[in-house]
């Protein structure tokens, strides 16, 4: 069976590599992008099963990426989990309105917890 593809769009190298390492260990296939443009390109190319998306990015921000993603019918079905250190209620609500499936504050979740969340979302996705 094909490995599940996860795309991480995160501009901080250390964090990106850490989470990448963890998710790979769990048996997923992981692709990385360091900014929004690169992220969108890789989404089109890779068509991942799930996207971990940071909001503060150089160039276009996470909200813009999310918007464009959902506007593309061929890509809009891909579940997006926001992984950000913003945590204001406005940001959460905006993300959910734009179509994100969950919002996790990086500082509040351990890598294990993030993996759990990913598994939950994929499970729900597979069931529907």
């Amino acid at each position, binding site marked *: 069976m094909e490995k599940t593809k996860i795309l991480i769009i995160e501009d*901080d190298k*250390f*964090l990106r590599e*850490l*989470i990448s*390492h*963890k998710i790979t*260990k769990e048996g997923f296939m992981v692709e990385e992008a360091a900014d929004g443009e690169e992220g969108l390109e890789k989404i089109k190319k890779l068509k991942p099963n799930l996207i971990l998306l940071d909001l*503060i990015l150089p160039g276009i921000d996470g909200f813009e990426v999310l918007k464009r993603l959902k506007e593309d019918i061929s890509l809009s079905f891909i579940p997006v989990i926001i992984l950000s*250190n*913003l*945590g*204001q*209620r406005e940001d959460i609500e905006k993300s959910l309105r734009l179509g994100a499936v969950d919002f996790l*504050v*990086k*500082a*509040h979740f*351990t*890598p*294990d917890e993030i993996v759990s969340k990913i598994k939950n979302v994929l499970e729900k996705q597979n069931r529907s």
Partner: protein
Amino acid sequence: MPKQKKEKNMDLWESLPAAFCQTDEFFTIVKTSRFLRLLLHFPENKKEKLLLKDIFYSEEDFNKVKKLLEKKRTVGIKSFLITGDKQKIPVSVFSQPLKKEGEKGYVFYFLDISEKQKIKEELQRKIKDLQTFTEELKKSRTALLNILEDIEEARSLAEAERDKTVAIIENFPEGLAFFDSKNNLVSLNPRACCIISVSPDNLLNKPYKDIKNIVPFNIVKDVFSRKQPKFFKDEIKIDEETILEISAIPVKSAEEKVGTLVVLRDITREKIVEKLKTEFVSIAAHQLRTPLSAIKWSLKMVLDGDLGAISLEQRNFLEKTYQNNERMIRLINDLLNVTRIEEGRFLYDVKECDIIKLIEDVVVLEKTAAEQKKVKIIFKKPKIKLIKARVDREKIFLVFQNLIENAVRYSLPGGKVEVALVKTKKRPEIEVIVKDRGIGIPDKEKNRVFSKFFRGSNAVKTETEGTGLGLYIAKNIVNAHKGKIWFESKKNKGSVFYVTLPVK
């Protein structure tokens, strides 16, 4: 003298209505006119010789006359005659030596000036009265002038004061609107007109009820109600760019209501500065979270064994590091919350919420941490099945979470935390009570409990992890909801925290 002529002369003496007489050179009266005799009330048949001096009231006057006549001078003086019945008659005395061949003597003519005198006296009296009256008038005039002067002075002073006051009001950097005791708008200074963009002509002298729909006067209507008016202050956004702070104060003068003063402050700039400050803190906090996340994740991964096995000693050490990092993350959360509270008195999302469910959710969240410490949380639900209030759910959640967290944290192992929710009958409000039997708050420190970064001395010893911001944030949230928060506590016995929220 021929008898005819003598008779003619006799006639004159008898018939002329004039009082005259003739004396000899020794001033003995030899002839009198009938009129004189009548004037002096002489009895008709008086035969004795009369001396001139006898008919003069004043001997001095007689002597005066005598001297003048003896010097061959004519006399014309005023004097008094005395009548037979001792009355005094004012007369003019005219006299001169007799001009007759062979006879020596004097002729006297007495003109009764009593009428004249009476009139003269009357006149003098009237003149005196007039003078007195004039004096009185003069005095009154002086007094009036003095009063006028005083009044002028007082008026000048009052005008100067008024000018000063008007100048102050006109130039006051805040908007001022003054309503008189009948609630008519009597004064609106230029700054106020500028702030609310109205021309004063449209509003001046109108009663409050006519302008109460004009923003921002609409929000001060409670101050104009007949109930006991109190000081009122609030903030209102009047358009996209302007935020006003409006206060209304009843003005009293010796317990009498003189009017109402409304002060308008444009606080747009202050709000912008506040916002920038908050944004700055917000951005800084988020930036800080990034390295903290990195530390958290990497430590966790080492602790999870993802980088290989670690010794027990290494584990313990790294656990402590991890906990400290968690502490920093919590502190940043609290700081962010604080700035959010200070960001605005506007609550973000006020809705009708089920308070019972809210508290239940908090209890569920805190149960795990409580169980680890072997502390029980008991929520005593109210008899009413549903209690609703208009609140910002997320923020009120923080309040209850903080109170219950504290209660658990500062309880002793095996302790109990009781939470109750009551709907008070007397006032339209709900009361939440969180009670613990933990370490309590020392008396000396009670007044600082709600201040930023404060932690009780005994709390710091028991639990190193608190940030000191929880109650500060809680108080700000409760105040923003127009509620109240307070506590009772005794060191080593426990604490009870109360929160009331209005349910309009």
